[in-house]
């Protein structure tokens, strides 16, 4: 496999400008001759579909939700970063670029991240123009807050519902194009396979989730914006439907997968309560602007938090990272919380929790001010836990939140399959080994609004694309294999439910490939997962048929893919013999327990290639490397102390 990241030559600051000029264009009259498929309608997919339609392309957009407005981007809470420097506090494109590279623990591409920082300001402009109601100051100008891993205030927000408001902005732009007939929208439709003709991505096979009908769609290019795969852990902050199927199917068709083991564990989530629990709920990172994280100094201290005097509390983030304090990056904050709990200082019934305390802020600013900033989050916390966070500290614990890994893409956001483009969380590109808070929204919208419209034109203008219809044999073969697979799932007629398998897989992944990983554990997981997969294909029980709304069948298809994908994650974690960002191998740490990178051998993207037939289980996974070249940033040990 040949990996060419296609990073433009020239100085960092002008790479994107020059590249845009070098890219070929499609004339307005020719745009209407092209069909583009967009899978996913979140920030990346929705913004891409809308923008490409505005430009005149014919777009088909697919989502498994019942409306594009329900994509999981909607749940993002805290905010979106942009290097506007409206505060005059020393921010700049270069600083956002540097913070993101450093936050990612020096495992992302300089050129991509710089472009992201460059377009960040335009995103805010675009969203405001759409009517997104960002928070404002009394003078009527936009307000900012601070997020982890940065010492400037560059995060724009709409209370604790920034993702919702940005997605509704993209959704409104998409709706306008649907109304105009330029986008054909297919809600409640799930992609099951990618179709290649002459080695190029030319379409997809989908299942109508209401009727069960399998159908093919042909196009000149395919865009996947299908989000992350955090649900491989079963419990995560992702929506219940979030899955790896689209990207994993593309992987099996030949698209390489970058850094699958890079998972973000978010430090501030509501702790697990019982074995019936179906998902974890995030409490926005923005809370760390005003909340202080602490545990009792002594082990097993069962006193009520109010009864523990200040001198007997360990504000461990402030103690260990005085210059960033409670706003240390996510991977570091999560690991510190885990350490405290592992040392027996955890709070709550299970002992897996730390306090996030607002008492100081409430006495400094007053309860009303705190309510104005975080009211909806406090209410949500109370609804779930039945505890009032205005009166007693929140209890939080880390949970799986985001996946930095994803399909490998070049600078043009194209995968190793010509014509297959990947945007947003679904690609691997911009966050390295750890994503900074408020950067996911930025990347999703950067990819969709400001990158893909330029780069896809270059692909369309410079490729020879014969007319292809869905009667082509490749489509028929892919449809047949999808039908066969559904038939297999339904015919097992075993005794265990899909959820029971998913929970079991999740437990393996969390125990062995979660916040801390080691060789022995990963090797165990690599034995346990294939065994579980085998049991799945022998003992799964799904009722009903394909030709109806069958939620168990939908889940089964997704879990079947997670059962293969989990193995790839463990394999990646096992072969990356270093600790970096969210990937913490206990064998590789500094004496004071910080991640110990190995730049000599691992300053690269691990790029995996599927071996074997696309329709059968993998015969193997082959590891390639894209070396990361740092011309502008000096590789340094990340320090937030």
């Amino acid at each position, binding site marked *: 496999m040949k990996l060419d990241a296609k990073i433009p030559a020239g100085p960092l600051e002008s790479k994107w400008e020059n590249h845009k000029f070098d890219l070929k264009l499609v004339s307005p009259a020719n745009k209407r001759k092209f069909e583009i498929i967009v899978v996913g309608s979140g920030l990346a997919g929705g913004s891409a579909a809308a923008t490409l339609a505005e430009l005149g392309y014919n777009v088909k957009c697919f989502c498994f939700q*019942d409306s594009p407005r329900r994509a999981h981007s909607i749940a993002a809470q805290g905010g979106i970063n942009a290097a506007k420097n409206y505060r005059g506090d020393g921010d700049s494109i270069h600083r956002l670029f540097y913070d993101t590279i450093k936050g990612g623990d020096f495992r992302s591409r300089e050129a991509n991240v710089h472009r992201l920082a460059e377009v960040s300001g335009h995103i805010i402009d675009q969203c405001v123009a759409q009517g997104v109601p960002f928070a404002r100051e009394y003078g009527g100008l936009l307000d900012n807050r601070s997020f982890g891993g940065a010492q400037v205030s560059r995060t724009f927000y709409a209370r604790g519902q920034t993702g919702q408001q940005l997605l509704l902005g993209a959704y409104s732009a998409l709706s306008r194009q649907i109304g105009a007939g330029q986008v054909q929208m297919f809600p409640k439709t799930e992609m099951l396979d990618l179709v290649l003709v002459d080695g190029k991505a030319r379409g997809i096979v989908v299942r109508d989730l209401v009727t069960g009908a399998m159908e093919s769609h042909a196009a000149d290019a395919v865009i996947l914006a299908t989000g992350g795969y955090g649900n491989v852990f079963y419990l995560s902050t992702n929506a219940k439907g979030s899955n790896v199927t689209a990207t994993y199917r593309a992987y099996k068709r030949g698209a390489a997968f970058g850094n699958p083991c890079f998972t973000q564990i978010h430090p501030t989530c509501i702790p697990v309560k019982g074995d019936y629990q179906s998902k974890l709920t995030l409490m926005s990172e923005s809370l760390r602007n005003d909340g202080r994280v602490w545990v009792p100094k002594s082990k097993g201290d069962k006193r009520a938090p109010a009864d523990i005097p200040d001198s007997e509390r360990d504000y461990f983030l402030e103690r260990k990272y005085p210059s960033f304090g409670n706003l240390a990056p996510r991977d570091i904050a999560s690991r510190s919380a885990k350490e405290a709990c592992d040392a027996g200082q955890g709070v709550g019934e299970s002992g897996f929790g730390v306090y996030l305390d607002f008492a100081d802020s409430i006495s400094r600013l007053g309860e009303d001010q705190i309510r104005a900033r975080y009211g909806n989050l406090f209410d949500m916390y109370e609804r779930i836990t039945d505890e009032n966070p205005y009166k007693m500290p929140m209890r939080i614990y880390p949970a799986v939140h985001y996946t930095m890994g994803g399909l490998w893409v070049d600078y043009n956001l194209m995968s190793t399959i010509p014509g297959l483009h990947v945007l947003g969380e679904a690609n691997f590109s911009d966050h390295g080994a750890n994503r900074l808070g408020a950067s996911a929204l930025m990347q999703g919208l950067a990819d969709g609004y400001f990158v893909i419209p330029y780069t896809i034109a270059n692909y369309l203008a410079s490729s020879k694309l014969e007319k292809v219809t869905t009667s082509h044999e490749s489509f028929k073969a892919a449809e047949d294999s999808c039908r066969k697979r559904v038939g297999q799932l339904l015919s097992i007629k075993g005794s265990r439910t899909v959820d029971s398998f998913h929970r079991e897989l999740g437990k393996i992944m969390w125990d062995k490939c979660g916040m801390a990983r080691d060789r022995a554990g990963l090797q165990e997981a690599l034995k346990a997962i294939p065994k579980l997969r085998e049991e799945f294909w022998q003992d799964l029980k799904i009722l009903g048929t394909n030709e109806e709304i069958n939620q168990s069948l939908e889940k089964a298809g997704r879990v079947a893919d997670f059962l293969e994908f989990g193995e790839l994650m463990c394999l990646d974690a096992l072969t990356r013999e270093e600790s970096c960002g969210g990937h913490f191998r206990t064998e590789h740490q500094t004496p004071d327990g910080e991640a110990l990178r190995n730049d000599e051998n691992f300053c690269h993207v691990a790029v995996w290639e599927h071996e074997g037939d696309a329709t059968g289980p993998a015969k193997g996974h082959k590891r390639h490397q894209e070396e990361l070249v740092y011309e502008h940033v000096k590789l340094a040990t990340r320090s937030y102390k």
Partner: protein
Amino acid sequence: MKLKLHVWRQKDKAAKGRMVTYNADNISPNMSFLEMLDVVNEGLITTGEDPIAFAHDCREGICGSCGVMVNGVAHGPQDATTTCQLHMRSFQDGEELYIEPWRAKGFPVLRDLIVDRSAFDRIIQAGGFVSVNTGSAQDANAIPIRKSDADEAFNAAACIGCGACVAACKNASAMLFVSAKVAQLSLLPQGQPERQDRALNMVSAMQNEGFGNCTNQYECEAVCPKQISTDYIARLNREFIKAALTYPDAKK
């Protein structure tokens, strides 16, 4: 906790539905309402009965996917709460619950508790946007907006499109939903050029989808998980009348 559930079962859009009774045992008060249904469904699958189909996704009250009638109240008894955020501690041990889908002409039942809400998307497509192409925006701070207007626009924009307002209304009116979007954009300078057309077109789309009108019962506001105020309906009426009088020949 032990509960007795009466649940609406309907195979598909064309089939006739009926209430079926189930026992829900071993329910923890800390479970969410949907986790309670998960537990019931795991039991049903084990005994060979089709699980209850219900819509859900984020399970944190923001995607707007979930929503059922619990004892005749959209999203159940807790104020300002979606079904996924409703917890079983809101109920008594031994209670009987009647669980039904949204019922409205504009929301046909697809299966059990799942309804088709695509009408809401079509209403937004009729005008719930600002027509601005990507890349043509001016600097964000070039449009200062009075803080109180921005806050009020946000309150309206908080709508999650779940459809509880329609389900709670005896007229199956979608006016709270429509008014939230019309109000948000009419409060902001960005929404001004299309203000009148938006009100006319969205109201017309709402009527074409089979939703009724508002007769001031405020049931919608009472069940809205995001506490969208019926004040916006008053705003919508004003916007609509003004637009209809100003542009009597406008496309409807």
